[in-house]
């Protein structure tokens, strides 16, 4: 993907840019809001990562201006402030996602992937399939290798979230947001417990692991 990073802190900027380049993205790093706005306007990007606090023109104004000119490039806000108010203000300004500093690179990478390749809202699929795992969204029946698996409603929601984004990393916070509607840090690693419960039902009895732990990032259900 082609990514524009607007970040005034040189160390953080380089960290983000280098990490994304290592993942194979093409990255432009800009250090000021005004320059970033110009670059965003003349270039075409798949995703923008914008720091909220920038010298001169701040990140909120950059995104508001872009949205006012009908530029719909997905934006991920980076911020030192992490309150609910800030999240809402950021999303209202037109950002697509919000990440509080300091963050793990895996979290940033997963979120960029999520907003950059938002599945086109086509017809809702009736069923999801990964390898020999099948999920019917209408009957809410889950089978693996033809065997019916009984899942609790929340286990179903968690698996659905992973299967809908198969091949892409879902971080713990992303899963908490989408499955439990929790948009704050609950200071617990309970997502891991939920995942291990799910694994005990869909992976363990079948010998092969579909749900993969991505170190320093989160979980992913693999295509093959």
């Amino acid at each position, binding site marked *: 993907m082609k990514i524009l990073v607007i970040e005034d802190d040189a160390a953080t900027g380089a960290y983000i840019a280098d990490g994304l380049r290592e993942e194979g993205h093409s990255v432009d790093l800009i250090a000021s809001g005004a320059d970033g706005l110009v670059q965003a306007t003349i270039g075409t990007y798949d995703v923008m990562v914008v720091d909220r606090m920038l010298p001169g023109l701040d990140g909120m104004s950059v995104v508001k201006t872009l949205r006012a000119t009908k530029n719909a490039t997905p934006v991920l806000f980076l911020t*030192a402030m*992490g309150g609910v108010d800030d999240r809402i203000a950021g999303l209202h300004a037109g950002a697509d996602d919000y990440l509080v500093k300091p963050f793990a690179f895996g979290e940033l990478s997963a979120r960029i992937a999520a907003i950059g390749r938002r599945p086109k809202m086509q017809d809702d699929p009736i069923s999801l399939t990964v390898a020999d795992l099948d999920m019917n969204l209408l009957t809410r029946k889950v089978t693996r290798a033809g065997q019916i698996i009984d899942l609790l409603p929340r286990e179903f929601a968690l698996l659905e979230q992973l299967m809908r984004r198969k091949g892409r990393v879902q971080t713990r916070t992303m899963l908490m947001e989408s499955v*439990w509607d*929790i948009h704050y840090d609950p200071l617990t690693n309970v997502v891991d417990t939920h995942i291990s419960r799910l694994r005990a039902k869909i992976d363990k009895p079948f010998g092969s692991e579909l749900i993969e732990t991505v170190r320093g990032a989160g979980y992913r259900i693999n295509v093959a």
Partner: protein
Amino acid sequence: MMPARVLRIRSTPLRLTVILSVIFTATSLACFATTFFLVRANLTAAILSDMQQTVDTFGSTADLAELREHLTEAALTTDPAYRILHFLPDDGAVIANVKRAAPVSGFAVLPGSDFATSDRPLAESYQVRSLRIGDGQLIVAQSRDSIIEMAEVFAAAVLMGLLPAIGIAASAGLWVARRTQQRIGTIQTALSAITSGQTAARVPGVAGRHDDLSGIGQDVNDMAAAQEALLVSMRQVSTDIAHDLKTPIQRVSVLLDQVMTKTDLSAAQETLLLRAKDETACIVRTFQALLQLAQIEGGAARDRLTAVDLTDIARDVVDFLEVDAEARGLILTTDLTSDAIVAGERQLLSQLLVNLIQNAMLHGGDGGSIQVTVSTGPDGVTLVVADRGPGIPEHERSKVLQRLYRLERSRTADGNGLGLALVAAVCTLHRAHLTLADNAPGLAARIDFPKPPSGTGMFAQGPHLPQ
């Protein structure tokens, strides 16, 4: 019950108006009454002296024949509506200008109906005197109609003059009171808005006026402006601190990441690096929690309260944490009523519940149970999280709600001492009442949410957000 209610008028201007109206009415009535009784006394004296004169005229006549002549002439010429003469001699015919007179002795006040004429009209009321003159009994009755007319004039004066005056005074007073009340009301509204965190609220319409209320309004506005400036600069400082400190922390964590990607690390080095990363994360979390607390206590989120179902939130949170409780050998049970609607902020209420349940899991002892109850009552919605652990000693219950305060026995446990402070702050934001009580054994954290205000104002559709 009722009089106590009436006496307790809470609006000062209205109360003063009512008191003034009552005083004004009472004074006016007293004036009228005094004047009335004075005038009546005067009129009565005039009637009595007139009557005395008549009696004297007849009494001075010594000759009985002359007396009869006098009386006959007087009876002929005197209008009985003005004065009645009735002479009953011991022998002979009655000399009178009426046909009938009531038997009376001495002084009396009698109605006109006690007398009768053939065709002439009589007065309504008479001052009557009966006395012996010459060889007979003389009754002289003097009309009191002047007094009755005077009373009628007074009644008319009260009716046409005083009542409208009272009415005008009362309505003018009420109008002034209402206006003053409205102005006091705007000051009150602004003050309560300011104290509840809306520091931008001001008392309207104080410019250009120079009375005492405008003065108070202006003072309130000055105070709010100073407070707002202080708050803005304080927020600016905390935002700056957050930014200034978080950026270096971000760098530290970046550097740690970069070191960890090196493959030639020994296991011991990697363990140390992981611990350093954890500590960094811990600094960030405490920092984040402090910033969030400050933000909640700022009260700005109160504008965003919408109708939320506490049972929904509790179900989600319990569903989320249940596996954690099981892993700790605890049982998490629920008793949730449906439609537990409160005016709230979903994320903050969810975080409040997570904090309370986690607190119960951390400090609620081993192998016990944690009960989450949501119930509705006439006064609103009640949330209770109760554990069976050692509880919190009574004298420490208010202290645990302060930030960074931790019980002696909990110092080694997880947590940063901000969990319950956040619970308290979220309660304040929701105008909910938090009580920490003894669950015998254990701790019962009870939160009473007020009934959400009816009407649509509070429940204007909240901001709809992409999740």
